[in-house]
């Protein structure tokens, strides 16, 4: 879309990134709905139906795992783009150097003073937002690894439909989450158990929901009250910035 007179267009998100974002949104909603059912089946199947006609838990698990696998793949793509994107390379904004520190706290002050103090350039991604997304990705990776740790025990025979390398690799990559989860959940016993992984997975879901609440609040607030127009970045891909006096068109 061309910019209105008096505004200029700043390209921010490629089509691929926008598709990934909305895939993740749908995936998260689906994963939470099905995940809560898996943790504690909160609705009943029709008891009069015969068992062959209902497959409720299995469908819930199917949806949950399917979106988990989609998340795995989008995560790999996002990690790649973080470092090698041709539009923005967000990793440069989380390096703990002086410039990023100053920007981070300027954005934080901007938020706390409700936009009365604004000493940073909001045209491009700022350190605060990138750091906030960095936190999201850490939580997400933890979620994926604990999830796959629980998943691999369904492949207990060491076999899978795509070969023996898959459960082998999952054990290799996720087994360390067992002792780490036990340490996090607190344990008075000798040894660590898979229930701790599950508790960690469940708790992290609530942290992610909290993360989403602030993310949505922040983006809407900036768009509506501070007239930054940030929501259009993730819909149309561009931000429209008012041309200041004396700026070259």
């Amino acid at each position: 879309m061309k910019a209105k007179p008096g505004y200029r267009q700043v390209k921010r998100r490629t089509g691929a990134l926008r598709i990934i974002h909305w895939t993740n949104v749908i995936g998260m909603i689906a994963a939470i709905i099905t995940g809560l059912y898996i943790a504690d089946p909160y609705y009943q199947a029709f008891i009069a139906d015969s068992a062959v006609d209902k497959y409720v838990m299995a469908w819930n698990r199917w949806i949950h795992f399917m979106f988990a696998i989609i998340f795995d793949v989008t995560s790999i793509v996002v990690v790649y783009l973080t470092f090698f994107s041709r539009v923005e390379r967000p990793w440069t904004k989380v390096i703990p150097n002086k410039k990023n520190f100053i920007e981070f706290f300027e954005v934080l002050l901007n938020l706390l003073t409700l936009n009365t103090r604004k000493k940073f350039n909001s045209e491009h991604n700022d350190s605060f937002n990138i750091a906030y997304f960095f936190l999201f990705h850490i939580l997400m990776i933890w979620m994926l690894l604990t999830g796959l740790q629980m998943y691999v025990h369904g492949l207990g025979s060491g076999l899978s439909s795509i070969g023996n390398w898959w459960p082998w690799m999952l054990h290799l990559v996720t087994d360390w989450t067992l002792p780490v989860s036990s340490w996090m959940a607190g344990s008075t016993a000798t040894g660590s158990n898979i229930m701790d992984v599950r508790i960690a997975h469940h708790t992290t879901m609530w942290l992610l929901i909290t993360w989403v609440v602030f993310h949505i609040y922040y983006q809407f607030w900036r768009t509506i009250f501070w007239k930054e127009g940030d929501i259009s970045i993730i819909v149309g891909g561009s931000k429209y910035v008012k041309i200041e006096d004396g700026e070259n068109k």
Partner: protein
Amino acid sequence: MSMENEESVKKLFTAESAKVDTNKGDAYYEELYASCQERIEDLKKLAPLNNRVDFTESIEDQGLGRRDFLQWASATTAMLMLPASFTPLVAEAAVLMNRVPVIWVELQDCAGNSEALLRSDGPKIDEIILDIISLEFHETLQAASGHQAEKQMDEAMEHFKGKYLLFVEGAVPLGMNGQFGTIGAKGETFVEHLHRAAEGAAAVVAVGSCATFGGIPAAAPNPTDAVGVMDVVKGKPLINIPACPANPSNMVGVILHYVLTGTIPELDSLLRPKFAFGYRIHDNCERRAHFDAGEYVEEWGDEGAKNNFCLYKVGCKGPMTFNNCSIIRYNEGVNWPIGVGRGCIGCSEPDFWDKYAYERPMANANIKAPTGGVEKTVDEFGLGLLTVASIGIGIHAAASAIAGKREDGGEY
């Protein structure tokens, strides 16, 4: 990547949870078969360690025939994840079980594991085999007591030094210098007792959840600082057979494996034999189809309960519990918890009392007493607060003393 490298990389980067290799290839099993055969020939040359009744006679005395025994042998071969061709070897090894000396010590527990192998409706083959192993010392079963009992244990340990299997039942309390549990006429603490017994053992087998992970004695707030045997005994081959009580079939399986191959079975990261703890209860549960169908018992005694629906919503922890009771069941396959219509409480997992046994789905569980015990928290918080206040008073008093009294006319 060569196999050695692959193994070492795996060891380096993983905590190695259960991964079961059910088929290791013909070459492996042929070699194993030959070595087992050789070992059994060697064992046959040894005299039995005790003069108890012959195995075949004692089976017949209990009204069991040779057919029953062979059925048992093939079931046990399958349980040990060996090919069917090993059945004759397993049968032979069972007869030779009285060549292996066993010392059994009992620490902080309820004797439930001893009970499990004593109190069956009529002795089954597993229990008979545990009867004929050369049980040189068992604190709960023996007639001797006091100094006599200690003398007997010393003699057994001396005589079979480096050869006996040490079975340990019960957790090890470490609090108060181990004084929470003492044993024998000399008042030896459980820790010392265990160290002494383990020193000359060929291998240590921790039986039941208390001995393996601390079990109920180690549940929050763990007043006695109870730990499992693997936290205390180092530098010995150690096998954990958790569950509350441990299944006699698994105990026999471990001893049989030792008799048959001279080695301990393949273990997972928690030192549990993979043949028994490689799969979850859930993976082979008879009610698994109801789980997938979303058919759950909603409350005790409802229509679902009458129809053997899945017990997940009334707190079954099968999906997070590694054990083989859904396959071999208890009391020679008579029944098991899910079969009688109550959920699994995860009794073979570390921390099971705090994290599994609350009989509600995990999402509805109040996992611990708030902050690990009401009085304990109040006491510690109060002491902390008093300390902070005392430091504050001290600083104020010291500062006041240095500054001296305020000049005349000042107000406090």
